[in-house]
């Protein structure tokens, strides 16, 4: 059971370049999330999705875009990379919060991005 898989694990970008961080989950979760974590800081929500075709902004969406064409995949797009986007990016997924469930998030291993 792979869980949540993120690629790439590491990437160095030049200012102004674009790239896509890939995220795939095999647990049939309807909720998916992208967070960024700066050194010594907590997780900041970038975008999230409650199902295929539905996405919404989180706390820090500027400079990013997402799409959710399937239940399994939730890619994060950086269009014009800036040094401020240097961070570790985590993708996560969960079931919706049911009466008996915990709604716990399952996280990927992270993607470390450096913009120079």
């Amino acid at each position, binding site marked *: 059971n792979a869980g*949540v898989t993120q690629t790439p694990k590491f990437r160095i970008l030049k200012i102004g370049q674009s790239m896509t961080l890939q995220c795939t989950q095999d647990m049939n979760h309807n*909720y998916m*999330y992208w*967070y960024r974590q700066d050194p010594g*800081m*907590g*997780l*900041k*929500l970038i975008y*999230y999705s*409650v199902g295929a075709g539905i996405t*919404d902004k*989180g*706390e820090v969406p500027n400079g990013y875009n997402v799409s959710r064409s399937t239940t399994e995949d939730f890619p994060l797009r950086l269009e014009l990379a800036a040094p401020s986007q240097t961070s570790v990016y*985590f993708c*996560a997924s*969960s079931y*919706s*919060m049911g009466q008996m469930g*915990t*709604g*716990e*998030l*399952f*996280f*990927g*291993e*992270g993607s470390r991005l450096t913009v120079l």
Partner: protein
Amino acid sequence: SQKIEQNSEALNIQEGKTATLTCNYTNYSPAYLQWYRQDPGRGPVFLILIRENEKEKRKERLKVTFDTTLKQSLFHITASQPADSATYLCAWRGTGGKLIFGQGTELSVKP
């Protein structure tokens, strides 16, 4: 604005003692709070959930409380061990399904 805050100062305790971490929230009333553990270089791992109608929840050496009057959740690790050293994060689910995290508290348990 809605905020969830944890003590940003690291907590250093001796092995065998009880570690107590705090999560405070303002300007909203979450239906539940979740607690996660994060090890360096890894993604967070879910530990325990407490709902607003549960004053206290236990799971092995973990105990979580939820005080809606004080707008606070306390997370306790009893009989702490060096292996408990990690960063602990609380989180709440806002409207529309988003899950917002506090900044985390680093716990260090010394032998």
